[in-house]
């Protein structure tokens, strides 16, 4: 049996990486931190919701649909689950738009602090859910 190229990972560990990167002053680190914060939340939600019987993961792009929809169910986080989709929108903007992004009216740019805090809140909420 060959040695795995990538070991199994707990996606919530991306949060620590995001926090470490966010401290750095360079923009590459900040934008990567935003990306990791989103994926920490998304992947942790998917895996925890699956392990607790809330959804069946596809392990592909389709999970971007099933995770926010499942999170918003009353049995899961309810409307609070909406924040996962907000995180995704924010992450898309920060990752794909390489121009200067400012915190200004109607800019739809979220700070790295908001990304990390929101991601952590979602992770905490999902981890506290009972098994179904």
């Amino acid at each position: 049996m060959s040695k795995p190229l990538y070991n199994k990972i707990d996606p919530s560990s991306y949060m620590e990486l995001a926090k470490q990167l966010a401290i750095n002053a360079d923009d590459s680190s900040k934008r990567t931190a935003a990306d990791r914060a989103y994926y920490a939340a998304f992947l942790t939600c998917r895996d925890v919701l699956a392990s607790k019987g809330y959804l069946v993961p596809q392990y592909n792009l389709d999970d971007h649909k099933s995770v926010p929809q499942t999170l918003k169910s009353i049995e899961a986080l309810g409307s609070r689950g909406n924040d996962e989709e907000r995180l995704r929108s924010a992450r898309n903007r920060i990752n794909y738009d390489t121009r200067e992004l400012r915190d200004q009216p109607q800019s739809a740019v979220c700070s790295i602090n908001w990304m990390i805090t929101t991601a952590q809140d979602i992770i905490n909420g999902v981890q506290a859910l009972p098994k179904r």
Partner: protein
Amino acid sequence: MVIDSRERPSDFHYPDLKKGPYEFSLLSCANRPNSSLLDNSGFYIRKIAAPNTKKYYRRFGKLISHRRNYLRYEDASRLAFTIPPESVSIANASQFSKEADQIQCSVKLEDFLAIQSVLGSVGMKTLQEVLDIIWLTSKKLNWPLEKIQIDKVKDPEVLDWQYIRLLLFFVSDFESADNFLHKLYPILDELSTKLDVEQAEILQKLIFFDVQTTLQ
């Protein structure tokens, strides 16, 4: 679906618009510059008719009479979603979008059709109930909610996923706007328990929320 009067025949009909929440039909539109069909702001004027004319006049009488039954594109869109809700009396319909304590919530006609295509008739009723609860909460808690933008979002990654996003514009900083939205979440959850199963599922799976700020 995009409706552009410059590319449409003059007698173009949209009978399926009757399925909308306030039931109106776009009977015709102009396809060439004509002073009688072009208003001051340069918009082509469409002839709008409502199946229930009496109800329409009772509610929007002044608005309609001002324009002799010809509503501008935006006016027709504005009729699609109303804030405040029907339970709140509108003293003067002609000032519908001007009163300071009301929230602007207009949707272009093509966007209205796009939203309708995602939500269906049941979903449109759900959306109106969501807009009502947002308005009532905003008034009750004195939020600086300026306007609500309703967008159809085609997901960039999941091919078959389309949903509706309500973008709430607050005259505040981002942190405050974020807090307002978080206070709205339990209210939406309460609304969800009062909806029937189909409507609750639409609210859960097809309607999402985000905030924008307009404070300089």
